[in-house]
């Protein structure tokens, strides 16, 4: 086990009857990073997280959480984790404060109550309300607070901003960044790609129970094709441009404008364009969402 890793899985497999939910998940999550786990519904995100928490036992493979085996040292591992389930259900018999105190007591009262109050204030969560009277968004806020309030070393968040309005989503992302700044590792699943792009240091893309890509979001975007539209003062010969590696023509227009696809480095293209009288250059950068969708539409 590499001590610099907060999470490590190798060849993790899990099936439910005949359905293979995980088909060999390999993941390395470094300590102190925010790792976005992307995938559509049913791709294996939640199953992976539930294996990490020892809620379900994998059929094969190995996993380490904060250097420990979550099956053998289950309690010690979970003492250091803050978890937000994807489908949060809370005991409706209590008020928010009673529910939070219950979770705190399950941890032996190892929580920072002032921090819990601060988080609740920032999320506009009234601690005196009864859980049964809360909206879905407010229940999600309770889930966020209980996951963060004991300042865990590792946060496992399954769709953390689900059901929240954009303002609250930003508050939650801020709280996640603060947790990271205080040394926590954050592993969160999402299919809201804009938020992943905004806060994740690295992303892993899971598809049908297999991690097909792990990279930092910027590298994924940089690696992808860009569309470059160039307008010249007068028509030019395109040969010099099309000879460049990674450059292909999409549309020639009237000769004084051109639409190109560029794979990889932009340096050669920019230098070549410098030899011409250019009016305008418009570079279309693909979003993480487009890249993500490409993984699901282009690969078999």
């Amino acid at each position, binding site marked *: 086990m590499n001590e610099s890793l907060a999470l490590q899985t190798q060849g993790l497999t899990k099936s439910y009857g005949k359905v293979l939910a995980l088909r060999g998940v390999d993941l390395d999550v470094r300590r102190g990073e925010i790792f976005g786990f992307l995938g559509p519904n049913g791709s294996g995100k*939640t199953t992976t997280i539930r294996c990490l928490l020892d809620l*379900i036992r994998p059929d094969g493979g190995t996993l380490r959480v904060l250097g420990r085996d979550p099956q053998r040292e289950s309690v010690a591992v979970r003492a250091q984790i803050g978890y937000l*389930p994807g489908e949060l259900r809370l005991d409706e*018999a209590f008020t928010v404060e009673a529910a939070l105190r219950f979770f705190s*007591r399950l*941890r032996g009262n190892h929580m920072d109550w002032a921090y819990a109050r601060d988080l609740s204030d920032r999320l506009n969560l009234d601690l005196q309300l009864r859980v049964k009277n809360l909206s879905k968004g407010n229940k999600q806020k309770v*889930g966020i607070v209980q996951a963060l309030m004991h300042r865990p070393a590792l946060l496992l968040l399954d769709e953390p901003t689900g059901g929240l309005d954009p303002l609250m989503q930003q508050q939650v992302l801020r709280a996640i960044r603060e947790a990271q700044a205080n040394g926590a590792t954050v592993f969160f699943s999402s299919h809201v790609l804009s938020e992943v792009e905004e806060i994740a240091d690295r992303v892993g893309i899971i598809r049908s129970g297999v991690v097909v890509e792990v990279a930092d979001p910027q590298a994924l975007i940089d690696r992808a094709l860009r569309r470059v539209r160039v307008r010249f003062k007068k028509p030019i010969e395109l040969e010099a441009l099309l000879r460049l590696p990674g450059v292909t023509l999409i549309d020639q227009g009237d000769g004084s404008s051109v639409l190109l696809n560029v794979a990889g480095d932009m340096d050669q293209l920019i230098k070549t364009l410098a030899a011409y009288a250019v009016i305008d250059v418009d570079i279309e950068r693909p979003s993480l969402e487009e890249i993500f969708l490409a993984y699901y539409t282009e690969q078999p």
Partner: protein
Amino acid sequence: MKTVLRYALLRWRGQIIGWGVALAMLAFIVASLYDVALQMRGQLEQLLKGMPPELMMFVGGVDRVFSPAGFLDTRYFSMLPLLLGVFAVLIGSGLVVGDEENGTLDLILAHPVRRVDLIIGRWLAFCVALLGILAMAWLGLIIASSFTSIKFGWLDMALPFVALFGVLIWFGGLALLLSMIMPSRRLAASLTGLILAASYFVTAFARLSPNLSVLAKWSPLTYYQGGSAIEGFNVGNFGGLLLMAIVSVLLSVWLFQRRDIRIAGEGGWRLSFFARRLRKA
């Protein structure tokens, strides 16, 4: 475990008070009727003598009906296993699986709580809840008896409740065990309820039909003394029921530690552990 126990009791506090007050009131009513029954003994004996002998055996004979212990047994303690059995079956079957089915168990077990602590903590809470209900019923009986010619000591009157506790935790333990195996809490509760009802009738009819006595040996209610415990508590019967309940709980712990926690809405028999073992073999 203390937190688990405490919060389980907090959740059930309404049920505990409700059942306790209802059974205390019932005890009050039944005990109050004893002196009325004695005053009308002549008329009632005539009525009872007109009944078929099979039915008389069912109530235990004329003399038994008019003895204080017999009266309490036939009018109160004989029906308590069925009444309070409903509580035992529902709580027992939902001790762990209730939270699993409503989706709250995931979050609880994501905390540093051992599965064994969760199930044992809940089980102890169930026992405390039962003792609380029985204590309220006992108190009702003591208060009511003080106004009648039923003159038993306080501790003597506690003995049928102790016997009842034994049989209730037996059914609670069975419900818990079945909930660990069966696809849903509802199915586990239904099957345990069916066993409870069958046990009640088999035990009752075994007094009429010797053919049923073999079957009655397997019925837990055969080992429930009811009101007759006042006249002599059978430690062996109580110990046997207690032991069986403990075995059920230990088996449930063993199964719970080895299986996956299901998310709300998942179904199917909970035998994935055995299926995995078979596959590996």
